[in-house]
């Protein structure tokens, strides 16, 4: 009797959910993979002969250089976020519950202003006539304005600024779970600060680190507008390449191949993340 009652609602829910995900997630992704093995056609968008040439072009020195440079900027961004975010998340987790709630809230508030607007505000700060240069000139630290805008550094600053909270939040959640008893136990067993940190804290927070890396590294390769506004179209991200292949050069297959590459990178990182959690789980059981 139960079953006859519950079927229609249950079926409706499942059909809706599955339908949405199959049509708007699975199908589009398959389309992109399909596109990436087709040939570019100047008149229509795609034409037949199936080819792997688009993938071969990814390792063409020209694009390889762009990708490596983008990866380099994304990696520096990630490291900066980690270096800033790790102690930050730790310090945050030591505060009282009420303070934590307030500070987490403050971390999210900037997101309520459009990220473009915030990137633009950074431009106000970094420009040759901008506030940083004017400030430093005024207090006499420098004699000539620094060249900040339209440089690699500006892009990295922009990315760190936009992505830092994505590193902090997962780190914060692992630090919050990190029980003081464990640290105390380690201490009682005679381990000093460093050994405790290396052998207890680092492994236990590793999943958070990897989650943070995942949330920072990939977007850092895709946020084309940061490179557009702060990099002066000289410091391209993979995102800029994909965007220009789709929206300017009309080379869809190549753009699709580049995006498959990004997806593959994501899969790799996800795998690493899972692995670290599983290892951690096993260790805990032992």
């Amino acid at each position, binding site marked *: 009797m139960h079953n006859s009652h519950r079927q229609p609602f249950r079926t409706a829910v499942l059909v809706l959910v599955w339908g949405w995900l199959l049509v708007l997630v699975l199908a589009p992704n398959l389309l992109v993979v399909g596109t990436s093995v087709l040939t570019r056609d100047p008149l229509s968008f795609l034409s037949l002969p199936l080819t792997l040439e688009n993938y071969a072009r990814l390792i063409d020195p020209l694009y390889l250089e762009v990708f490596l440079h983008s990866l380099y900027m994304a990696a520096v961004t990630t490291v900066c976020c980690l270096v800033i975010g790790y102690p930050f998340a730790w310090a945050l987790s030591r505060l009282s519950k009420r303070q934590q709630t307030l500070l987490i809230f403050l971390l999210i508030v900037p997101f309520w202003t459009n990220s473009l607007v915030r990137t633009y505000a950074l431009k106000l700060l970094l*420009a*040759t006539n901008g506030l940083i240069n004017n400030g430093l000139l005024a207090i006499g630290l420098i004699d000539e304005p620094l060249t900040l805008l339209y440089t690699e550094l500006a892009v990295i600053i922009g990315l760190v600024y936009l992505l830092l909270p994505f590193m902090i939040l997962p780190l914060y959640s692992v630090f919050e779970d990190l029980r003081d008893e464990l640290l105390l136990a380690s201490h009682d067993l005679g381990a000093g600060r460093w050994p405790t940190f290396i052998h207890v804290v680092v492994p236990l927070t590793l999943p958070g680190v990897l989650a943070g890396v995942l949330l920072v590294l990939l977007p850092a390769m895709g946020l084309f507008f940061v490179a557009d506004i702060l990099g002066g179209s000289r410091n391209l991200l993979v995102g800029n390449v994909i965007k220009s292949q789709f929206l300017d050069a009309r080379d869809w297959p190549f753009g699709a191949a580049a995006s498959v590459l990004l997806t593959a990178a994501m899969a790799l990182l996800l795998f690493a993340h899972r692995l670290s959690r599983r290892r951690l789980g096993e260790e805990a059981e032992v």
Partner: protein
Amino acid sequence: MKKLALAGLLAVTLSGCGSDDQQVLNLYNWSEYMPQEVLDRFQEETGIRVVYTTYDSNEAMYARIKLLDDSGQYDLAVPSTYYVNKMRNEGLLTPIDHSKLSNYGQLDPELTNLNIDPDNAYSIPYLWGTTGLAYDASDVGEAPVTAWADLWKDDYSGRVMLTNDMREVFHIGLRVLGYSGNSTNPQEIEAAYNKLTELMPAVRTFNSDAPRMPYLEGETDIGMIWNGEAVMGKADMPSLEYVYPQEGVIVWLDSFVIPKNAKNVDAAHQFIDFVMRPDISALISEDIGYATPNLAAREQLDPAVANDRASYPTAVDLEQSEFQEDVGDEALQVYTKYWELLKAGR
């Protein structure tokens, strides 16, 4: 009750977007290429609201128009010289109905019936202009800036700006080497590429959204600029000078075209004719500093604008100048390849 509110909300939301009974004209144009006043006055007179969306390169415009080909979302676009030809040949355009354009006769005969579009069957000239040299007189020092080749001087390292336009950038590379800016010869294009790679370390940024801005912001001191941008920039920064380089300036003509599947062809014609009215053409030219092809409008211009050599070059200024032409798909591929190489090379 809650469900009702939700349904109501959704209904309002969905109706909020579609049911606009006001007539709308979707104009796809370069950034800052038409004063707001023109759009406002057009709406006042005709009741048609103009939605102005922007692009920063012919390539982006062309890609977008092709992308939205079937749904025909754009009613008007403003491609440069050679793209008119390309789009026309590919059947992307709606023929212009000259019987709906009362002001067509006032256009400069030298700028109509060109080989990019015989009899202006598919395009109507909007503005023409030049891409020349700009420099900030307060920053570049004593040495006079007279030629494209000056950009290669060591003094300006890290202070050079180029437009984000493949053909324009290669144009200067080709001209510096003494070739035609419309070259279709792969060897010449490659030579220009090699010449330009020498310049690249000095280049700070590419900008085709508003090429005057990097100069105003103090980020660059010398480089390429469109004449109208130089005029607008000079109003804010008097030390910004516009120079017609010795090797020859780049000349272009931007024209209105109506995409093939445009929904509002009548309004598009109305708008073109409105812009061709002498008073409106004069207003546009005075406001954004480019030259109008409308002879009747030129007589109405403020003398200060009409005599500004940046906006309206003299015959001497145009010596050695070259009009941008369609180079054909094959050469375009070569250009594109080297352009990507140039921009990716660090």
